[in-house]
């Protein structure tokens, strides 16, 4: 069963000059086909302006395709009657932690989604507690979001999405504005959710380290999907990745360089331990 399925997806927007006259159209997404099975962890990588965020916004029906079709859990996102169902099925976490928290208290913010869905009051409390616990923020339930760190805010935002009980979570560069610690916090929370709640996770990012556990990786450039495969397959094509202005994790880079100098190391090494093991085997 496909969670997300897109066929020949195109998204165009008008380019305007300073007076607001249309001078042309830009294609942010150009003929993208994508298939994401239920329960999988998929990462979409890409440089700035590659169209990855635009693609993410299609999964939540914030943007509607200009051409082609996007199905979320079998629902066409273009159909206005399915709009709220699509949004409930695919929850979305955005980049800026400050601009997506609505409540003045953590628990109120997490309750915002269920409130909108018309969930009964007792059920809301249960869901809020449950989802705050699953991201490890339960002890901050009465705190003001302004006093939290970036990573904590982002975890609250994730809890807010979980409380709507979606089948799929789309994270649109959730770690781009965080420090390394906050980044780890958020990725760990997402990992835990994936294991416990069995939701489909779609992670949009440009940090390579975050995608090594993914089932599939898509690399986007100029509105196209240019690479697709498992992380190991993707990372063994170092030169190609570099041509799309992507950084490769340090370990992979080192392994690649060593291999080029004649050492017998397999391609697509993702973790430090793997490299250590491969080096030990050389002797």
């Amino acid at each position, binding site marked *: 069963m496909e969670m997300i399925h897109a066929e020949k997806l195109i998204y165009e927007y008008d380019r305007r000059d300073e007076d607001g006259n249309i001078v042309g159209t830009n294609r942010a997404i150009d003929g993208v086909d994508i298939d994401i099975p239920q329960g999988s962890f998929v990462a979409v990588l890409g440089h700035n302006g590659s169209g990855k965020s635009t693609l993410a916004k299609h999964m939540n029906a914030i943007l509607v395709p200009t051409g082609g079709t996007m199905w979320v859990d079998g629902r066409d996102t273009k159909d206005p009657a399915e709009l709220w169902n699509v949004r409930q099925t695919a929850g979305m976490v955005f980049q800026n932690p400050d601009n997506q928290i609505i409540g003045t208290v953590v628990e109120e913010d997490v309750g915002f989604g269920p409130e*909108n869905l018309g969930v009964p009051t007792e059920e809301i409390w249960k869901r809020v507690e449950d989802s705050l616990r699953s991201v490890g923020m339960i002890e901050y339930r009465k705190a003001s979001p302004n006093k939290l760190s970036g990573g904590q805010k982002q975890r609250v935002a994730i809890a807010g999405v979980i409380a709507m009980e979606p089948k799929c979570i789309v994270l649109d560069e959730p770690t781009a504005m965080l420090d390394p610690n906050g980044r780890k916090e958020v990725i760990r929370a997402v990992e835990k959710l994936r294991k416990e709640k069995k939701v489909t996770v779609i992670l949009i990012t440009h940090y390579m380290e975050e995608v090594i556990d993914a089932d599939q990786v898509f690399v986007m450039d100029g509105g196209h999907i240019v690479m697709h495969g498992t992380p190991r397959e993707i990372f063994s094509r170092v030169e190609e990745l570099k041509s799309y202005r992507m950084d490769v994790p340090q370990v992979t880079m080192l392994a690649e360089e060593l291999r080029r100098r004649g050492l017998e190391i397999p391609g697509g090494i993702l973790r430090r331990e793997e490299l250590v093991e491969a080096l030990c085997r050389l002797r």
Partner: protein
Amino acid sequence: MIRDITIGQYYPAESRIHRLDPRVKIVCTLLFLVSLFIQNSLAGYVIATVFLGAVIRLSEVPLKYIVKGLKPIVILLLFTVAMNLFLTQGGGRLVHFWIFTITENGLRTSVFMAVRLMYLVAGSSIMTFTTSPNGLTDGMEKLLHPLNKVNIPVHEVAMMMSIALRFIPILLEETDKIMKAQMARGADFESGNIIQRAKAMIPILVPLFVSAFRRANDLAMAMEARCYHGGEGRTKMKPLKYKARDRMTYIITVVYVAAAFAAGRFADFKLWIF
């Protein structure tokens, strides 16, 4: 630090007054304000003082906070007292020098007026001290709900108010950041006359506005992504429900208003000129 500023001067505590339904507090505050205007007698003020004192005591808000709240009206207070003191005629003459005359009536009205003004401010500040800003907007939303029938978007207005409250600290922090950034580029906010200083604010306001609009755009998108579609079909995580203590508070307040009014009418007593 700038992000510690609280708006609506909420004083967090767990007192009996804090626990009341915000609607009760709003309505009872209004009743208290009305009670100050429908009577003007010593007996009435004595009852009002006892009532206000009891509420302050129960609210566990330190008295000095409430006194501090009176500061902004000091000038208004002095002005009103002076006007009433010198311009009200009638009754026996107390003091007379040059063109100023203080009469018994003048003294009486000015003292009563001062007390009335102070109680007005103290009474309403008790409400804001004991109700969180969100509680206030929730209470307002529920109280004004009937206005929905005449096409006033009560829910939307309340939502806007609570979002505005949420963004005050964020925008304050941002202002701080922009100010520092402009200062690093040589901007000068402190010297010059008032017009020059106002002009110096422009390089702060423009980026602040731009970023506020960007934030608003992001937030609207985040709200839509979480299925926000207006007040219809929405449930509440913290619905307002009247409890026994709320009903009691209504009764006590109504009894107080009646007592203050009746005392002024039928059981007033005189103490010197008052």
